[in-house]
């Protein structure tokens, strides 16, 4: 299972990087969101995958799953969700103001 996840994470990283390196702003944002997905899966996988019980006291307390990575992922998902939506809004606004979403034309000049 870990090997399968490693491949999935690797592919997500790859696609995310590819998209971030493209010129269109929309693709870049999608790339960042894939990249954060990959990172979250990485966090999940690195803390070992297993089927176990909820981390509560009781009969099944012996087989509980480490809840910490899940808490971290939840926090990180919330943050990346907010940032991605802000990024989309900003990109749209920038498109309205600047009339382009091509990063090549958004370089800016030194003399302004």
């Amino acid at each position, binding site marked *: 299972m870990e090997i399968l996840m490693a491949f999935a994470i690797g592919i997500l990283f790859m696609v995310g990087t590819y998209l*971030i390196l493209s010129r269109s*702003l929309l693709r*870049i944002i999608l790339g*960042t969101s894939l*990249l*954060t997905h*990959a*990172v*979250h899966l*990485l*966090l999940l996988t*690195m*803390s*070992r995958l297993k089927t176990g019980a909820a981390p509560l006291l009781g009969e099944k307390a012996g087989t509980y799953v480490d809840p*910490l*990575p899940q808490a*971290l992922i939840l*926090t*990180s998902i919330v*943050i*990346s969700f*907010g*940032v991605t939506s*802000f*990024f989309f809004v*900003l*990109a749209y*606004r*920038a498109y309205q*103001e*600047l009339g382009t979403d091509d990063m090549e034309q*958004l370089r*800016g000049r*030194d003399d*302004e």
Partner: protein
Amino acid sequence: MNNLLIMPLLIPLVTAVLLVFFYKQIRLQKWISGFSVLANVSVAGYMVHVVRQDGIQTLNMGGWAAPYGIVFVADMFASLLVLTTTVVSAACLYYAFGSIGKEREKFYFYPFFQFLNVGVIGSFLTGDIFNLFVCFEVMLISSYALIVLGGTKKQLRESLKYILINIISSALFVASVAYLYAVVGTLNMAHLSVRVAEAGQGGVLTTISVLFLIVFGLKAGLFLYFWLPGSYKVPPAAVTAVFGGLLTKVGLYAIIRTFTLIFYHDPYITHTLIGWLAAATMLLGVIGAIAYWDIHRILIYNIVAAVGFIAFGLAAANQAALEGAIYYLVHDMVVKALLFLLGGVIIAYTGTAKIREMGGLMRSRPVLGWMFFIAAMALVGVPPLSGFIGKLLIVEGGLAAGYYWITGIGLLTSLLILYSMMRIFMNVFWGVPKSPLSEPKKGTGWLVLPASCLVILTIVLGLGAEWIYPYVNQAGETLLNPDQYIQAVLKE
């Protein structure tokens, strides 16, 4: 356990929430935030005093004991930086009162400013590496808002890049936390230090440490500063002053903290790497500072050069060098903010950022001229001003550690920084005015007042070194002996 530790974080947080409710009454917003930053300065000052008296203070959030819950730790290093942060942000806020303009005030400038403080101060105080990530995000998200607030074309263009680079570095941050958690199974920094020491810092952990170095280096502008000149140039002076004074320093703090507390076992690889990155940063930064004729750009490249210099203090990693790094860090926060504030006033008077089109400002604005001169001298490190002691200690430590080449580069950098600052000074203040002074907005003269507080502070930091040194010494000792930090956090 000391509840005082949450106060420097809580005050700006509560203020920010309050300000959102009064979004229409801008006068009231100014009163509240002006009062709250001053309150925070005194709380932070009291915290430094308590840490000096009673040693490292900790606070377990929600009463969860140390390695399990989130813990806040105030050692001398963190509390000194918190105090400096509060002072610098107070000066920048009072400067913003007179310069930021109705448009930005109406769209929540003051709440965002307070949230930025929450993130910065939280990053200094937290003792948990994932909480550090969260505080970084609080700081970054407010900085996204501040950098784009105003919505001019170039702001929109540059903020896109700024956000992109920070999203990527945040993703890498979480990835490095994931690897670290997989190897040592904890997130509490003191506990991490214990576990890494037990396991021995082998190849895997050293690789993870370099990943952290990349992440923090991106935030601090240590070698990976390519994003910095573009994005720091676009917001108004008050915002750039906060960014230049505080944001990159948070990244530097994180580098210093992780490489003195957690990954200090293999200095041959990590610290040598930091040393050469620092040397490259100094050189490239100062080349940028010499190359441009734009006052903003020159100052921004000076930020980069200073980041390199402080990182070199960490690379040398002995008592003198670390003390120097701390002293220089505090000095640099004050003086960089000060230079950007003064740069903003100069631009307000002359109406241009190009120093070739200015001239003769000394005749009409002598106070501004002398303040800029003092700030420039402090930046270069002319005794008795604040930069001198930090530089002296770093050079002393660098030579003691055998980094002769990099120390030489550091001294050469100082000379070139002197050249770049003198070029601004001579072009702007000497000679005759090349173009008629643009009529500044009413009240521009008052803007030098908050800046003058920082000028006095740089003089005090230099002349009062005798009183300040014991504090820096205590901070350096804690950094050199991670056991003190671990004892304070993991005690029963």
